[in-house]
């Protein structure tokens, strides 16, 4: 049978960023899916090695507009790991508060977009309207609606005022009411049930096999959450105090992903309240001092899943290696498991259901002679071997590789 391919992208109303899907379809049914990224690669990891330790947070903040605190958060945790220091309690609470505010507005943004994708523009506009309250609170807390610049190695970059905290409490009340309304009105809508239930199921086995993370894996029954599994900053005490819980659902379809996100928004609201109520006094930052030689890892539960940063230092004022792994990078391949066998109308939803963030995920693509190609594992091994041989030749030593080749 002749297969038709349906191109979606690189520029398409469904996609807020440039990427290219090729759906192989048979009638209205999707048989296979292929994805191409690399339209927007900016080389952040390389840029980071040209900046000082304290400049890097500002750079990584701009990896993504929505998870703008998750990347610097993971980065400062990595550097603190390298230094072996911990932020003072108030700094920890402030960082966690901003992190959770980000989760609330990110999930509300996704809820709105999900509504838009199923043609429910009223949900879109309403969700974004209530998101504004949270953004206002973020602006009062940090000075910016997004790109808060609140993370610094050794604590928070600025203190927050009691006035801003009070305002945030009110904004959280509004957001809680709105989220509960969405949970009641939207999740009980029979048409939404019809559209979302049983669509794009990602089984628990597939979620584990593809290494899915965050709100992509938790709806499939994989209870993985960095905030609990490897507690950092204020997350440990707040979880122990029972301020919030991890939302895990079992079905793995788009409906569960939506419900999971909406419930997570509520949990984040509770967590923010707990953080504000228990905000300790005292210093909010320590002076980290010189960065010694060594390496460090940091990870943070971003709204889309685990974001991981690795840094290596040679004792100078700049990292010599900085590695970023954004959650969407591991969530994208789950399309291979969840898309085939579904209708085109549903695939648009499934691709949106992992809340993809392509700018976080961008990797280099090679364009030569007007054609795009990606480097495979074999290509990379070949390049690596060639480089080793080159260095050996330069050093004039007998090749250790020769016996393996």
């Amino acid at each position, binding site marked *: 049978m002749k297969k038709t391919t349906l191109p979606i992208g690189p520029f398409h109303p469904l996609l807020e960023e440039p990427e290219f899907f090729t759906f192989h379809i048979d*009638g209205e049914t999707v048989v296979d899916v292929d994805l191409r990224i690399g339209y927007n690669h900016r080389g952040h990891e390389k840029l980071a090695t040209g900046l000082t330790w304290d400049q890097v947070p500002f750079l990584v903040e701009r990896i993504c507009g929505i998870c703008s605190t998750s990347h610097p958060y993971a980065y400062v945790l990595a550097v603190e790991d390298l230094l072996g220091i911990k932020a003072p309690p108030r700094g920890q609470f402030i960082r966690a508060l901003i992190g959770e505010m980000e989760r609330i507005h990110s999930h509300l943004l996704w809820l709105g977009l999900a509504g838009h994708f199923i043609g*429910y523009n009223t949900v879109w506009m*309403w969700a974004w309207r209530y998101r504004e309250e949270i953004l206002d609170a973020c602006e009062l807390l940090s000075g910016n609606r997004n790109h808060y610049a609140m993370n610094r190695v050794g604590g928070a970059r600025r203190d927050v005022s009691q006035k801003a905290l009070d305002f945030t409490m009110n904004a959280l009340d509004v957001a809680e009411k709105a989220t509960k309304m969405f949970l009641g009105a939207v999740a009980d*809508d029979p048409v939404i049930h*019809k*559209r979302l239930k049983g669509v794009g199921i990602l089984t628990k086995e597939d979620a584990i096999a593809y290494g899915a993370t965050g709100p992509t894996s938790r709806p499939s029954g994989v209870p993985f959450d960095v905030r609990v599994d490897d507690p950092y900053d204020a997350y440990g005490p707040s979880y122990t105090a029972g301020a919030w819980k991890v939302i895990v659902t079992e079905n793995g379809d788009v409906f569960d992903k939506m419900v999971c996100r909406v419930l997570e928004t509520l949990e984040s609201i509770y967590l923010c309240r707990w953080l504000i109520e228990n905000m300790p006094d005292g210093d909010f930052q320590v002076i980290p001092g010189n960065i010694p030689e060594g390496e460090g890892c940091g990870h943070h539960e971003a709204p889309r899943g685990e974001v991981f940063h690795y840094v290596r230092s040679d004792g100078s004022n700049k990292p010599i290696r900085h590695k970023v792994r954004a959650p969407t990078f591991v969530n994208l391949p789950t399309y291979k498991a969840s898309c085939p066998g579904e209708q085109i109308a549903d695939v648009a939803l499934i691709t949106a259901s992992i809340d993809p963030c392509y700018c976080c995920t961008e990797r280099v693509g090679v364009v030569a002679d007007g054609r795009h190609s990606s480097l495979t594992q074999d290509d990379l091994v070949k390049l690596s071997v060639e480089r080793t041989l080159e260095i050996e030749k330069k050093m004039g030593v007998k090749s250790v590789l020769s016996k393996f080749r």
Partner: protein
Amino acid sequence: MQVFYYLIFPGFLFAAVAGLLTTWFDRKVTARVHYRVGPPWFQSFADFFKLMGKEVILPENAKKTGFLLAPIVALAASVLVATILGLSNWSYDNGFVGDIIVFWYFLAVPSIMIILGAGAAGSPLSAVGSSREMKLLLGYEVPFVIVITMIIFKAGSLSLGGILEYQLAHGPILYSLSGVIAFIVALLCVQAKLGLVPFDAPEAETELGGGAFYDYSGAALAGFKLSKAILFYSLPIFLITLFWGGVRIDGGIGILWALLKYILIVALITVIRNTNPRLRIDQAVKFFWGWMTILSVIAFILSVNGL
């Protein structure tokens, strides 16, 4: 005189202005529901004239004649629809026996032209949109025909004028149990005919990027948009004609009452489109062949029994 009817009133010019204003009303109400400001009243006109001034891009793989003819035929058919409807409401003797069947036929032409035009465009997205429009057409025509047949039986007349005369004598069909059920079915069929949410799968901006209209641009797209706008004006009037005693221009109150009925139905359509997500095409077809057909048959049986 026929030319005047067709081109000026109640045909092309009047229907186009009324249709674009209706589109604006729909957009404005939608915006208010969304907590947005919404466009000014002339926005639909501005959009139309801007599109008219844009280049018509012909896709490389398109069958050019079919591709370009489709919007023209669609527009001509929807103007005919508006003319027949307007004349029948103007004077009940204007019609002829069986004009409701002609009317129903012309009502299907814009949809068929969307199928043909999108099919001729030769791109996968248009092809999917075209096939969806076809499925949708097959879906909603079944209950739609049953409802129209029910009204023909009830009024005992095959002409729009006859149906209006029956309602003048016996009161609007809407004021009966079978009438209410049939009206709900017809309203949802109209929603699908206009390609509005929850039945906008053929366009599905977020899935197909415009679907059936994906390859259209400039004046050709404007033709389709205008044809949709004219249908947006005609179809609520059609519902009023079938169910609610028509638009009667006897004195000032009559016009006001007619306008009220019209705005009410348009508002109903707008509310439906803002409180529902898009149905998948197979779900939409199942919905029409299942629930809507059953409901229309129930209405038919009730009306035969005089309810």
